[in-house]
């Protein structure tokens, strides 16, 4: 509790000594992680064959509705946001020097 570091540490400490490789430093692990994601996605979709679903809206009866919707919506979101950037993005000092208060 008796820490004297200020709220804004002036410089991030960087350690120059050689360090051990961490989990995601190994490309194999990234591949394995992605593989696990694909497998779980397939599993979640496959479960629809075995679970009797009680849906509250007719659209949900479509096979894999939530999976499809999630995927499509996220791609739409990101690609739209990318376009939005062209309209709303300004340089970091855009508001500086306006004396705004």
């Amino acid at each position: 509790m008796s820490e004297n570091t200020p709220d804004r540490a002036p410089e991030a400490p960087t350690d120059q000594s050689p360090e051990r490789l961490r989990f995601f430093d190994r490309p194999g692990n990234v591949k394995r992680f992605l593989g696990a994601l694909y497998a779980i996605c397939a599993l979640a979709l496959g479960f629809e064959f075995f679970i009797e679903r009680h849906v509250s809206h007719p659209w949900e009866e479509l096979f894999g509705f939530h999976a499809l919707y999630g995927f499509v919506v996220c791609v739409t979101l990101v690609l739209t946001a990318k376009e939005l950037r062209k309209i709303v993005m300004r340089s970091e000092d855009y508001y500086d020097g306006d004396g705004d208060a």
Partner: protein
Amino acid sequence: MTAMLELPPFVFFLVGAGLVAATRGPLRALILLAIPIVSAISLFGLPDGSHFNVGLFDYELQLLRVDKLSLLFGYLFHLAALIAIIYSLHLRDTVQHVSGLLYAGGALAAVFAGDLITLFLAWEVLAVSSVFLILARRTPRAQAAAMRYLAIQVISGLILLAGVLVRLNELGTTEFTFIGLDSPGGLLIFGAFGIKCAFPLLHNWLTDAYPEATPTGAVFLSAFTTKVAVYALARGYPGTEVLVYIGAAMTLFPIFYAVIENDLRRVLAYSMINQLGFMVCGVGLGTALAINGAVSHAFNDVIFKSLLFMSMGAVLRQTGRINGSELGGLYKTMPFTTGLCIVGALSISAFPLFSGFVSKSMVMVAALEEGHPVVWLALLFASAGVFHHAGIKIPFFAFFAHDSGIRARDPSFNMLLAMGIAALICIFNGVWPWLLYSLLPFPVAYEPYTATHVLAQSQLLLFSALAFAWLKLSGLYPPELKGVNIDADWIYRKPLNWLAATTMAAASRWHGATIDAGRQQLNWLGRLIFRHSGPQGVLARTLETGGAALWVAILLAASLLLYYL
């Protein structure tokens, strides 16, 4: 004993703030921790009803109205205050400790207020105390943001006061019950609540100021102001249909900003509006299920949003950076913060077994039940979107992504402890929601863990993650870039600011000209006075007593003459 302790909760925080200001070191830490605990104990077991009614002029203030709705928010705010206090224990900053306590006390005063005048007073305490949590960052940027924040909060307070007075005139009562939109007073009060609740286009004070607060300040801020507004809407405007659409809009538009925002605490601020949208929507739907959903989601949101702000505060404190473009790879040296942040991320994304799962879906089911399928689709969009920007983006760019070379360590024990407590509550409410459900205003018939719900939500989230992975691997995902994204605050920070500056310049030119003209007039007047009253002036000559008597006689004669005329 209990009789002695039966005081409105804000009294404990107010007195406590005084004690904290006067003490230092371990004693201050002890008092800080004792305040929310003692206050919560005194709250425990208070019977329903109105306590501590005091007269103010002709009005009666109800300082402590206890029912299920106010009590739930009361417990929540005590919990949030305790967590934020633990997180702040390492600080040696009286400003932050005292203003944090006053701020929490103001929030408690607001949710227990039984009348609108008390609510207004608490509203002002919230505004004035919280601004110090932003000022305490002690940078010019934070100061400018704090002043903009304060101006908007004060405007909200003034609108509230105007609404209360209009309503008092209309109905002759200041009681804080259902208000509704069918009167001018009701509309004004709605506007005041809307500002505090970050309705679209009124939201920018939040995304502007919260990311400029101190690491601790942002944790306090994220818990109180907006949730007081949700409470106030749930009390005054349940079933107001326009809230359904306002809420849906609030869930949608911030997620686009959140995807392209670089400052990770600003991403959290945008995702906060997104979560508020679910609550506002629930209040607007107004059914028992929807109100339960809104209120329970407010509870869960305070905890997981605190957790996320704490983890990003820890990153900011330990590295001095918060932009996604400058961070990355921190999981190597900040494993605890990483893990706790991921718990918060899973909770806000509403993964099964985490807290968001048991509350957010109530609002969504209610939207379908009330015949709003399009709103339901929007909320589903927002659910996927929140996972995308808060669930994945926050932990990914801070702790994983590319290795930034920063080797910052986990923060101090008290900060980790506070995050740990919040994470435990997130998991507890996710696994065992029935305790939370028992505190809700209406009896709960909702069952979150059905196979259908678990499967649907898992599919939605997993395929959102798949979309992220695909976009990232294919290079379509927009990189984190330095820059600011203009939002509705542009209106008052650019054109209005320009207008104000130009008006000021014109006014000061006119002012200068007027001053010059005035100075000439004054000089003339001065010369005139000098001529008559100066050393040689006719009015400054000393007269002999006889002369004075003569003048008095002349004056008397003149007045007598006038009298007879």
